């Protein structure tokens, strides 16, 4: 009797396990039903999407709802998931390598992108949706995701490098931000700030690349040249690193606490008014809102100082390419949805409204929607896009190739630290770094 009961229980257990496996994520579908169209016109196609930023996920879900309103004939159910940055990139790489388990769409960050273009890219080419829009967008933002003339990714934003001044500190030192035109002016202003307030003019990332890459891009240099050869140790880069090192030697700048501008320590440091400025790409705005609430109303967004009068005052930095994988069962629909989210005018307006990024379609920058008050204009004032319009033609394209991940890695782990913390000779540091990746 007892034995039979045991067998019965075991059978029930097995059945439950097996059936649970068969249910095929019906729970997940139900949760996403809000994206499904209300009419019973067509059966929605399920699209899966991986991203590494919860804000991106919210954006895509909102775009899926809009898509279903405008395209009732081909509705979609979007199943978007956010994973931690490294986990997502690694899982996607493994899924593409093994040929199974990849989503229909995914976000890939620019410094990882080259990894996915090695060998035969397992990503679908997007030429048919990108090419018709090329005249409306900043072309360099799709060129960075291209290989052999095929486009594989679409960016969210320009990533224009700008400088965020703490006007309260600069006023105390008697510095007018509009007088800072070149990096030499910046150094002079830094001396005044240091003398008047005892605070530093800026912080430099010692474990990341955003204090170096935009500056060399401004003067037409890069990690790699057009032919994707390493030029990390060229004269322009040495001069730039020497300039930064001199700022540190004069105590005008310090290494960012925590090693970078995304560290908990740094947010606290900046928020308590210890530094008069920070130069980061446009997408850094969101970090001020989220982590540095005390600086509200005190931050002015300005073009970067140029290397010489009339020189370029910005650089296109960072980026996230949305891709469609070859494993997708509905590649065409996935492409259309990606284009709708990231290439269309309404998509680009939402990118600004929801994410605070500088959209890649320049024709929407003057549209009334971008002038509407939102959480970003509350924090930084109303003229955010005036700054952006000023610099939109002063952005060099960056060269992204197979060696970009390695170059970026060596800059983050070796170059910045050795030059700005150990104060080693910049020429030697860059030479070592370039040799190690060639």
């Amino acid at each position, binding site marked *: 009797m007892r034995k039979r009961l045991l067998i019965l229980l075991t059978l029930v257990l097995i059945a439950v396990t097996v059936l649970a496996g068969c249910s095929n994520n019906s729970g997940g579908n139900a949760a996403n039903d809000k994206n499904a169209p209300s009419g019973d016109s067509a059966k929605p196609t399920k699209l899966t999407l991986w991203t590494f930023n919860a804000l991106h996920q919210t954006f895509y879900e909102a775009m899926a709802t809009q898509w279903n309103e405008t395209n009732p004939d081909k509705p979609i159910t979007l199943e978007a998931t956010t994973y931690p*940055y*490294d986990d997502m*990139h*690694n899982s996607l*790489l*493994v899924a*593409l*390598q093994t*040929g199974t388990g990849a989503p229909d769409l995914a976000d890939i960050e620019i410094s990882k992108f080259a*990894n*996915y273009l*090695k*060998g*035969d*890219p*397992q990503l679908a080419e997007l030429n048919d949706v990108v090419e018709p829009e090329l005249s409306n967008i900043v072309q360099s933002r799709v060129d960075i995701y291209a290989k052999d003339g095929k486009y594989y990714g679409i960016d969210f934003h320009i990533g224009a490098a700008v400088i965020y001044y703490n006007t309260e500190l600069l006023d105390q030192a008697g510095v007018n931000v509009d007088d800072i035109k070149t990096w030499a002016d910046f150094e002079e202003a830094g001396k005044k700030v240091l003398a008047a307030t005892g605070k530093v003019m800026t912080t430099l990332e*010692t*474990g990341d690349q955003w204090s170096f890459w935009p500056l060399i891009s401004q003067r037409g240099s890069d990690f790699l040249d057009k032919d994707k050869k390493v030029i990390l140790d060229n004269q322009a880069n040495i001069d730039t690193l020497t300039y930064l090192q001199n700022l540190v030697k004069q105590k005008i700048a310090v290494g960012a*606490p*925590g*090693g970078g501008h995304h*560290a*908990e*320590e740094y947010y*606290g*440091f900046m928020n308590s008014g210890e530094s008069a400025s920070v130069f980061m790409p446009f997408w850094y705005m969101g970090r001020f809102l989220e982590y540095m609430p005390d600086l509200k109303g005190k931050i002015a967004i300005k073009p970067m100082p140029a290397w010489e009068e009339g020189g370029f005052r910005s650089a296109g930095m960072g980026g996230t390419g949305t891709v469609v994988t070859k494993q997708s069962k509905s590649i065409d629909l996935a492409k259309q949805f990606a284009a709708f989210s990231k290439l269309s005018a309404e998509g680009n307006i939402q990118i600004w409204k929801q994410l605070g990024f500088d959209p890649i379609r320049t024709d929407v920058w003057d549209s009334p929607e971008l002038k509407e008050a939102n959480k970003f204009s509350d924090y930084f004032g109303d003229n955010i896009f005036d700054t952006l319009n000023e610099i939109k033609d002063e952005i060099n394209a960056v060269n992204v190739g197979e060696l970009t*991940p*390695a170059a970026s*890695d060596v800059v*983050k*782990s*070796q170059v910045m*630290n*050795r030059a700005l*913390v150990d104060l080693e000779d910049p020429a030697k540091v860059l030479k070592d770094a370039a040799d*190690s990746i060639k």
Partner: protein
Amino acid sequence: MNTKFAVDASTSIPRSSFWRSLPYSKKLAPYILVSPFIISFLIFFAYPVINTVIMSFQEILPGQVKYVGTENYENLTNRQFYRAMYNSAVYTVLTLLVLIPVPLIFAVLLNSKAMRFTNFFRSTLFIPALTSVVVAGTIFRLIFGELPGSLMNEFLSLFNVAPANFKQSAPLAMFIMVILATWRWIGINIIYFLSGLQNIPHELYESAEIDGANAMDKFLKITLPLLKPVTIYVLTISIYGGFAMFTESYMLFAGNNSPKDIGLTIVGYIYKSGIQKNELGFGSAIGITLLGIVLIINVIQLKFFGLFRKED
């Protein structure tokens, strides 16, 4: 005689009773009983190891797998690999120096009758082993933050020591990793030593006392020699554990990115090359090299302690 009977029975009786008699067959039952282990060993250990050896001679890209000879092994002669080897070796030696004597002494104290609240100490020393390395690593990262307000710098300021930038200097970074390992593994090693201590017959101590041995003599002449098997075991797994360390450094340096690679371990380097840079062939070559190194060290150490010698 029984064997013979069983074999005869299984051959002559029809099929249904063959299955019934199977568990009682002295020839087959042992194989059946160990088969789960053998199968899981073959699938989850032998197959990956063999495949890794093959992959270490390949360049693996989606759709383009090709043999590259020993190129992956030739590429190992680079600064990052040496740095990772150096870090892992130093870390292993330091953890051995701390994690064998200290738990041994603690175990002796906890085993002694003179000690009070032993159960309380046993459990508190063991609790860190139950925490997740991810959580512990994150908390240690914050404790050893570089701002003057971080816990450790606040503590140092009580003694008028200037705030230290823990994660920028190689010796301090190594110090944090060893502290984290000590905090986390001390309880486990205490358990090993305690179980060894409880196997030492009490009579030995009594007769030694009669012969006039003091506490120190008893510790050096009885406890230590009789704990040798446990010590060898702890040493072996600690060497392996030291070289296999990854999560701690990954968490302390928020994603495997330590300045000048001061926190890069050999497994961290495998992860960096194989997964983060999509060079699975090169990653496999590092893995095989690591396997070789750990194997050689362990064999030398076991031979040195006479584990392969026949017991008298």
